């Protein structure tokens, strides 16, 4: 068996730290926790529409669906829209996918409702899949990490 990597240890334990080491803080309401995921999904839909082509059309539709499902789950609309950034359309979309993944990872561990947890886990898996597709299109390693959480892919 290969030695445990720093990345693996982080994946196993870093989020424990997010919960804090002292008295546990009450997490925000689910609506607030889901809001960054909604903002990212909307930004991604717009980015994929700009990218165009079949990939852009298909993924824009998926992201619009993500947004609809997040709204149905009660996601708030108050989160700051992540900037698409400059550069090539697929690079910009990849950056936004990473933003979305980080939002889902934060939310999945904190939301109280089981349906909200299920939704954020599913959206994380879907956006990780999108990121992998984009990386392949860009000629890069489509599996850069064993724990896709938006920090690498």
């Amino acid at each position: 068996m290969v030695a445990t990597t720093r990345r693996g240890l982080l994946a196993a334990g870093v989020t424990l730290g997010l919960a804090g080491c002292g008295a546990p803080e009450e997490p925000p309401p689910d609506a607030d926790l889901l809001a960054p995921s909604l903002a990212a999904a909307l930004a991604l839909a717009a980015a994929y529409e700009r990218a165009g082509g079949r990939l852009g059309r298909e993924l824009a539709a998926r992201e619009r669906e993500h947004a609809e499902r997040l709204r149905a789950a009660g996601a708030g609309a108050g989160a700051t829209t992540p900037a698409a950034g400059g550069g090539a359309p697929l690079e910009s979309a990849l950056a936004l996918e990473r933003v979305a993944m980080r939002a889902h990872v934060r939310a999945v561990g904190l939301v109280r409702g089981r349906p909200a947890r299920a939704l954020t886990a599913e959206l994380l898996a879907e956006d990780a899949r999108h990121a992998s597709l984009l990386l392949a299109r860009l000629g890069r390693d489509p599996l850069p990490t064993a724990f896709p959480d938006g920090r690498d892919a």
Partner: protein
Amino acid sequence: MPEPLSRRAALAAGLSGAAALALGATASGAAAEPDLGEALTALVRAEQDAAFVYRTAALGGEAAALAEQEDEHARALSSQLQALGLPLPAPRRSRSGLPPEALGVLEAGAGAQRLRAAAAYERTLIAGCAARLGLLEEPGIVRTVATVMASHAQHLALHERGAGLDPLSSGG
């Protein structure tokens, strides 16, 4: 408690409808497991099995990287299991006792047929993670399992591309 996400997640991760229905049944069964230790043990064992499959199946290409990622998943989940003071499952040494979808990868013909079997196997791994998420409480464990599930979704996309399947046509 509503059944968390099993069938839906499986669909989103790229399942055909019929396969998703089958996995939905599997996931519902798994969701009935009342014990956190049992859930984590099953997840560790599934990742150990996956590492064994990718080391053994002669998939070529990214197989070594996939095996290493499955090992990383197993180690991360094992640390959670150890934190509960529970024993680790013994590492997989042979194909005896592997689930049918894992055996399907080992027994499939070469090339695209084997990659399709690997895609089907990854769908079961996704469903296994999805089914057990609802049993977990601690945020760190939940996030670990969610990112393992996301990793399997990436593996699935890789196999679909390799097998000549359209990764845009199967959800996600």
